């Protein structure tokens, strides 16, 4: 207890000036309050560690549930689970399902969304912390945060009814002029709207606020003295950003991006509405259609009546679970272990 007070004292000097003269009651009151605060201490520690354990236990139990439900179906599977593009569970006695296409569509749409969203989010965050006048940066930040409050069904409807027709000319241009790049060649859909391309743009808008918010918070915490030191050396605003803000906020920015990627990987209803289904396998083009893990499960959820076909979908869910786990772990590694600066 006393250690903590000592630690706080130097940092809070400036702000808590009025308290400093009356600092004498603090040491006096500490022994008097000791029994109750010690009980409070242990209660609080119990609650906090309980919450921590609860979350870990819940995750472990979810993983276990997925595994238990998935195994019987995986045993009954007639196709190669990792390489088969088909997902046919109509006949419970003849299951053949694989996750190749689900994995590819999930990764393609999410990574494409990340590629679109990361530079924009960086720009927005830097604008809000370094360029925008104070009166503007507050409301502007609210507006960006509001994007996160829009329900994903709205994004889905907007995506397919408004955005898809609007960006079809862009898709057509890319397809005609850059079709020699595998990403832009004609995919497995007869149309150019409602593709992974469209879905990726929708996802980019959806993950923009989360990346922006995290980056903004981190950039705003850039130590004053570093900025002032750079300025003292005659740095321009861009040089300040490059030499002080970006190196300081890099890991936070990456962590925010990985949070966004996590959201994109797991996004369900918007993807389900926007990306059209196809009858042939994925061809590694952004103009393919298909299902992501989450959208496939959502599309079939109302028909879960027999255990074996249901288990097939749950095994897909298990892979998504693992994938999200891996992405988070990667984020930790990239961010150098010190996420959030």
């Amino acid at each position: 207890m006393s250690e903590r007070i000592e630690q706080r004292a130097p940092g809070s000097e400036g702000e808590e000036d009025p308290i400093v003269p009356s600092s004498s009651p603090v040491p006096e009151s500490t022994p008097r309050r000791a029994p109750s605060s010690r009980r409070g201490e242990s209660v609080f520690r119990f609650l906090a560690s309980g919450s921590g354990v609860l979350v870990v236990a819940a995750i472990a139990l979810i993983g276990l549930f997925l595994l238990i439900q998935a195994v019987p179906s995986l045993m009954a599977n007639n196709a190669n689970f990792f390489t088969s593009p088909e997902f046919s569970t109509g006949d419970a006695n003849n299951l053949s399902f694989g996750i190749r296409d689900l994995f590819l569509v999930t990764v393609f749409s999410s990574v494409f969304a990340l590629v679109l969203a990361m530079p924009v989010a960086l720009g927005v965050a830097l604008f809000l912390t370094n360029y925008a006048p104070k009166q503007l940066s507050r409301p502007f930040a609210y507006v960006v945060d509001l994007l996160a409050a829009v329900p994903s069904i709205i994004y889905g409807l907007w995506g397919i009814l408004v955005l898809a027709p609007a960006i079809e000319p862009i898709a057509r241009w890319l397809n005609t002029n850059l079709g020699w790049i595998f990403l832009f060649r004609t995919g497995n859909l007869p149309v150019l709207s409602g593709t992974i391309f469209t879905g990726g743009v929708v996802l980019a808008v959806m993950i923009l606020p989360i990346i922006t918010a995290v980056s903004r918070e981190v950039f705003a915490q850039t130590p004053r003295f570093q900025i002032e030191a750079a300025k003292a050396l005659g740095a321009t605003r861009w040089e300040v950003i490059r030499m002080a803000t970006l190196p300081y906020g890099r890991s936070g920015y990456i962590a925010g991006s990985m949070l966004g990627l996590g959201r994109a990987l797991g996004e369900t209803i918007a993807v389900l509405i926007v990306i059209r289904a196809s009858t042939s396998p994925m061809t590694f083009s952004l103009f393919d259609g298909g299902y992501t893990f989450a959208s496939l499960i959502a599309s079939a959820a109302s028909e879960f009546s027999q255990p074996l076909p249901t288990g097939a979908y749950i095994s897909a869910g298990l892979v998504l679970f693992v994938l999200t786990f891996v992405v988070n772990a990667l984020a930790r590694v990239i961010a150098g272990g010190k996420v959030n600066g």
Partner: protein
Amino acid sequence: MRYQRRAAAIGLVAAGALLFSACGSDNAGGGGEQGGANAAACGGKQNLRASGSSAQANAMTRFVTAFEQACEGQTVAYTPSGSGAGRNEFLGGQTDFAGSDSALKDDEAQRAQQRCASPAWNLPMVFGPVAIAYNLAGVPDLALDGTAIARIFNGQITTWNDPAIAALNPGKQLPAAPIIVNFRSDESGTTENFQKYLVAASNGAYGKEAEQTFQGGVGAGARGSQGVADATRNTPNSITYVESSFATRAGLGVAQVVNSGGGQPVPLTAENVGNAINDVAVTGQGNDLELDLNSIYTTRTPNAYPIVLATYEIVCSNYQDDPTGQAVRGFLTTALSPEAQQGLPEAGYVPVPDRFKQRLTTAVNAIQ
């Protein structure tokens, strides 16, 4: 007459004293049940629960409204959670009856026997025509037959001016544009019934299985009836299959269909669909009215529109709980009444045609 008065008394009790109405009507319902079956449609359990097919959800809404008006204080809560879920919840005893796009399978029928302690009946109460909807500028009243539709939806016919389509549409200017097929990407009874029609009516030209997911191997999927209707509206030269209400609401063209008897192309109207339903063959025993839908798909009756989705109410023939049986009987009787049936065309269904309605009425009256 006596029982009608008693029913009115129940209504009064229900309206006047909400607190006591539950036991009041249950007791009185038990009394009414001793008498004749058709004396009163109302009475019995107040809040019926049902779930299942979303294809019949809009018809259900109308039936429930009519039921609430006819029988004060009684209602049905219908959850359109999908046919599979509906059957499961009925078999598990969570609901009083199920709405389903397909009849009970054999193993389900056995479980139903246990749940009901009596056979369960499949009653085809709601019929919805499936439209072949298209977006093709300058071609009204496109005519197609089963073989042509099958070959479009399995990718053998790829352009609008294909000779097979041109032969059915003499004198119409068909563009050389490619045909874009939009299909339902989710599992649905509409897809299953449509593919059953293609298998039955195409003389083997379809060559795929009739499953709940689209097997044709061409085109782009969209989610739900609204999804395919929107996709077709937004994509020139595209075609899809969808419940007729969605097609008309989206302003799409609806193809006329030449049925298996050959002859003139049949436009999709309530009367033409009724012609097909009247001739349907029933495979169920007695009051179990499971249909042989192939007899509709391959109908040879002139002016019979062959692509019809039939959805069932799955009920116990003899409920263990008498008030429930009485309420289910009352609800289904109301559903067949002219008041409930007349609004159906606006919602994309067809009223049950008279000849078939007689069979349904007999079965409904026998529910205990």
